[in-house]
């Protein structure tokens, strides 16, 4: 099973088109291994991106450097996955 410990999902708020373009620049940086759950669309539409543990600091620094607002939507993806698995196993056990 792929492991998602330390992966975070950031919810990015883009105020205008230049900020949308800034986030699209991130999308092109393959080495960050970003997984856009909700891609860059229009100003005002939230952008959700799963960020691997090793890329979290770099991505946050990039966003802050360009005054792009974000919040942490999911603190640790693996923790949610574990909960999901537990729920399924509990069902099977029953």
């Amino acid at each position, binding site marked *: 099973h792929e492991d998602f410990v330390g992966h975070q*999902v950031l919810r990015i708020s883009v105020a205008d088109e230049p900020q949308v373009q800034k986030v699209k620049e991130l999308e092109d940086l*393959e080495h960050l291994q970003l997984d*856009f759950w909700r*891609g860059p*669309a229009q100003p005002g*539409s939230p952008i959700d991106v799963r960020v691997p543990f090793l890329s979290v600091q770099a991505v946050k620094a990039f966003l802050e450097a360009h005054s792009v607002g974000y919040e942490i939507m999911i603190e640790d993806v693996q923790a949610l996955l574990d909960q*999901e698995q537990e*729920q*399924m196993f509990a*069902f099977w056990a029953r």
Partner: protein
Amino acid sequence: AESTDTFNYATYHTLDEIYGFMDMLVAENPGLVSKLQIGNTYEGRPIYVLKFSTGGNNRPAIWIDTGIHSREWVTQASGVWFAKKITQDYGQDPTFTAILDSMDIFLEIVTNPDGFAYTHSKNRMWRKTRSLNPSSACVGVDPNRNWDAGFGMAGASSNPCSETYRGKSANSEVEVRSIVDFVKGHGNIKAFISIHSYSQLLLYPYGYKTEPAPDQQELDQLSESAVTALASLYGTKFKYGSIIKAIYQASGSTVDWTYSQGIKYSFTFELRDTGRYGFLLPASQIIPTAQETWLALLTIMEHTLNHPY
């Protein structure tokens, strides 16, 4: 589960459990439900579609699919719930009975079986198919960018490592080709609804171009009615509009192709996450999500019945 009455709709299930559910539903409703195999996946798994019919020959039909993006688990789970709901409501709910007395419903619950199996076995975040790309170490194609509608235009990626990789050619994915062949072979599908998650949107063509669809006004009005019906249950707010206007440019998408085939009522749903779970929506939200979505589906199906074309 011994029957579809004891089947647990409030938990996520594996591919085998969903296929087992289908067989139980068919066995319990031989006069109403049948299971069609429309092809095999890249890795050789059968691709099943449930057919709900009360008779007739090649009646006008409604197509609903879930799970084309494999990680969007609430959609396959909702598809299972829809299947049971159809068998429960036929003969009970007058509106729905009228629909099924005149039209057939085709429901493909697991539209990307290889990807879905992979989300259970290896990578819960997997979205694409599992086909191998000769020119790359990256696997899979985005099955919602692989259709022959604006294929190759902006709004999809030519990079096999991208989550929106369109594939080497339109219909290159057998999971897509199987539906294309089925739709063309049937020839009388009047509504096509492809269900994704998440972001609470009801979308209609086009995704690959800004030009409004010829039926844009009717689709917009129908969308408004459908999202109003959806919100009436739990207050879940959906936005609606053309794909390119409501979110972004997306080429090679399912409903742009079905619309190009003359299927006027072509819609994509993006189901809830009302909170902060994204694709990891807790199982406790499966049934509420399916219930509210069903009200929107009923609105679209009833409109299709009452506006033959």
